[in-house]
């Protein structure tokens, strides 16, 4: 008789996080092999690991992330567009530029500018209708209040701890959807969930709680002036769906345990592939096991990666898969050496207790990875004239050369700042790289007045394409899962024949080298 299958066993909490050593951070060590430090996890990584430890394996080896955000009922990027549109609408109302009854005409303009298709626009209208039904009063109260709601707030910490008696510090970074200083709320906005739900969508409550934990672990000195005097300990945590707002309790010992458990998985799997076996044995959430035929419905990875369709051809897939393993690992190592190490450097540059060390890191990074700038003038249509810091203007000239470039721009600090995308318009009158002056297109700048600003290289810039490694991992994983079932097709399919020849037994097998 089949028994019920056990849910995952709590992971042994870490005794310490494997931080990069000083010589790694100052780049005095040859980067080789598996990094001797743990990755710098994002809030999304932690949520995935809470959902199931196998997500960490797929993140590490196959470049997959966002297990809860896969293609489901909500088509494409509608969730992101909904959040962006709500932030634009609220900003416009708060600044007295648009009235609430203009919401749908503003949406039409937004969809047109973003080039969204009719289906996406129709979805957005539907969600917006639900949302507006309950938000009319609060939006009317928002009229002309000024920029006191902050969207897409980037946070990064090296000091978050979980559990009262635990002293292990962890690094975590991520983005908070909304910090509302008027109503004293931190908001996680989502399209997941249904009209009649009495609980927030699966793990959204954990997400907003974790964002709050990260936010409250950051030293107040690093906050921009406009946020420095806020008491975030007293803020309400809200999960907002189009149909309902859910208030999340902050004192959640279970969440503390989940977070610590998730970070232990992230560290253990990064450290050694030995932990993959444990992850498989413990697959599923703490309260919901996952097995063949009983997958966690919300997990996109379950069907796409763990229990994907087994094609009949190519027949030498097991051999192909074995040959791909070192590639996955090497690509992962590169991501950690390039991207995660930079996240450590940027965070430690602001948060390390040793002031001299901070200064050394700043010297290393300014002019290479970060470029301080000053907003000189708003010239309309989201375009600004900016001046790059005198000391680094030539470094930026070298980076930019003759091309337009996308950057991340942060207002505030790396530890807590408003993250926006900036696009350097090199052909505009007013751009003079030699003088350090550029015309830049930046969306959603409201509320950033008086904040420090800097361009960030290495997160999005093409010169340092760590994210492409992830794309390659995903592509290799797709190849691993690819195949055909029909014998007649397989017989004439070039790729099937190629794989079976290259990875087949005997004389046809290709030799290395």
């Amino acid at each position: 008789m089949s028994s019920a299958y056990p849910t995952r066993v709590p992971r042994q909490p870490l005794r310490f996080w494997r931080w990069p050593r000083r010589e790694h951070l100052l780049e005095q060590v040859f980067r080789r092999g598996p990094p001797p430090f743990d990755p710098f996890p994002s809030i999304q990584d932690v949520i995935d690991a809470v959902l199931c430890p196998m997500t960490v394996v797929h993140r590490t080896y196959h470049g997959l992330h966002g297990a809860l955000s896969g293609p489901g009922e909500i088509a494409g990027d509608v969730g992101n567009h909904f959040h962006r549109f709500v932030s634009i609408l609220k900003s416009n109302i708060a600044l007295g530029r648009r009235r609430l009854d203009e919401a749908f005409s503003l949406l039409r303009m937004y969809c047109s500018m973003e080039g969204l298709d009719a289906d996406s626009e129709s979805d957005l209208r539907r969600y917006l209708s639900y949302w507006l039904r309950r938000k009319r009063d609060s939006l009317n109260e928002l009229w002309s209040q000024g920029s006191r709601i902050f969207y897409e707030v980037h946070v990064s910490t090296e000091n978050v701890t979980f559990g009262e008696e635990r002293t292990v510090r962890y690094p975590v970074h991520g983005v908070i959807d909304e910090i509302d200083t008027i109503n004293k709320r931190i908001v996680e906005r989502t399209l997941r969930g249904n009209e009649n739900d009495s609980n927030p969508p699966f793990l959204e409550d954990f997400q907003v709680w974790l964002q709050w934990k990260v936010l409250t672990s950051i030293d107040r000195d690093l906050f921009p002036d406009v946020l420095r005097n806020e008491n975030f300990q007293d803020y309400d945590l809200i999960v907002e769906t189009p149909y309902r707002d859910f208030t999340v309790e902050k004192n959640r010992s279970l969440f503390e345990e989940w977070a610590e458990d998730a970070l232990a998985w992230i560290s253990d799997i990064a450290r050694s592939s030995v932990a993959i076996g444990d992850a498989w044995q413990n697959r599923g959430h703490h309260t919901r096991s996952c097995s063949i035929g009983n997958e966690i419905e919300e997990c996109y990875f379950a069907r796409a990666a763990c229990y994907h369709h087994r094609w009949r051809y190519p027949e030498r897939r097991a051999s192909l898969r074995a040959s791909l393993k070192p590639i996955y690992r090497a690509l992962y190592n590169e991501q950690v050496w390039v991207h995660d190490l930079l996240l450590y450097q940027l965070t430690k540059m602001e948060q390390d207790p040793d002031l001299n060390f901070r200064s050394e890191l700043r010297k290393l990074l300014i002019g290479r990875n970060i470029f301080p700038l000053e907003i000189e003038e708003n010239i309309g249509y989201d375009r600004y004239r900016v001046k790059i810091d005198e000391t680094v203007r030539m470094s930026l000239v070298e980076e930019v050369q003759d091309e337009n470039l996308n950057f991340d721009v942060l207002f505030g600090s790396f530890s807590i700042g408003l993250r926006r995308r900036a696009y350097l318009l090199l052909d505009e009158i007013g751009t003079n790289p030699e003088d350090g002056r550029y015309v830049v297109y930046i969306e959603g700048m409201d509320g950033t007045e008086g904040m420090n600003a800097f361009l960030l290289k290495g997160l999005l810039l093409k010169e340092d394409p760590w994210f492409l490694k992830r794309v390659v991992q995903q592509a290799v994983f797709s190849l691993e899962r690819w195949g055909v079932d029909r014998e007649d097709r397989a017989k004439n399919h070039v790729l099937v024949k190629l794989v079976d020849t290259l990875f087949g037994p005997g004389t046809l097998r290709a030799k290395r080298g």
Partner: protein
Amino acid sequence: MQCIPEDLSDLVFEMLRTFVRDIEARKPPLKAGWVPLNEDYVKKLRSINFCEVDYENMNGRINYRSCMPEELLLTDEGRIFSEILRSIETVQQIEALKNNDHEYLEAVMAGLDEMFKNARLSFWEMKEGSIPEKLHNFVLRPRWNIIAEKISHSLILNLSKSIWSMDGILQKYEEAEANDKSIDFDLLRFVIHEIEESFQWRKIIGFFKSNKDLLEALGLAWYVNQKIIDKGIEYLGAKLLIFEAAMKVVAERNGETTDSLRDKLASLSENLDKLVFEEKWGVNWNDVFCLPY
């Protein structure tokens, strides 16, 4: 699906899934895969010949010793089920190694040979120019991958001789090395000499001399990995059953628990790093001594 009456289809798939789930929950095959039946199902199951029924407890399951229709084996559940069966068979073969010293060491050697063949043998240096120039030039040759395989061969012989006295087993590896005349041997010997005589290689040998269990675990893991490939096993749960059996055999032979062996394997990369941390140049030993998964 023509091979199964339509009204039994869901039940048969559930039986396949239950078998897989039970085996993954470490139930013995004899107790795995049973699902509760009602009288109606019991009657209907008589029409197919690859299920068995426990009339006393009113349970039924796929009879994993019988032949299943090919059509069923081509479904996702069918494929995973048959991979699980192949893994159970492999586990039994691996468990048989526990009490046979000669076959065990032969398997370990075959696995280590495979591990070294797959090694990247990439080099690092603290500062530019630390690697001896002749070696540096050699590494940059276009046929480096082929040469690396020969070097690997020599290193594995060197390592094995230092740790085990098993002349009979090593003989075939030595002969294979001696018969290979395809490359410039003087240069090859120089490279091998540079690595083998380097202080770090001696440290590596010293490390594995006092951690023979780790070397055996790596060897056996690569050995079973080859079996997994040959048997076309892809489902992670099925592969892990085999790796787990291999670790268990190594742990039992070395008088330790599987957990402690796994802990040591988990910190292997860090420990290898510590050994060579102060060297000026070296091989990335983490890419050599690693698990195949």
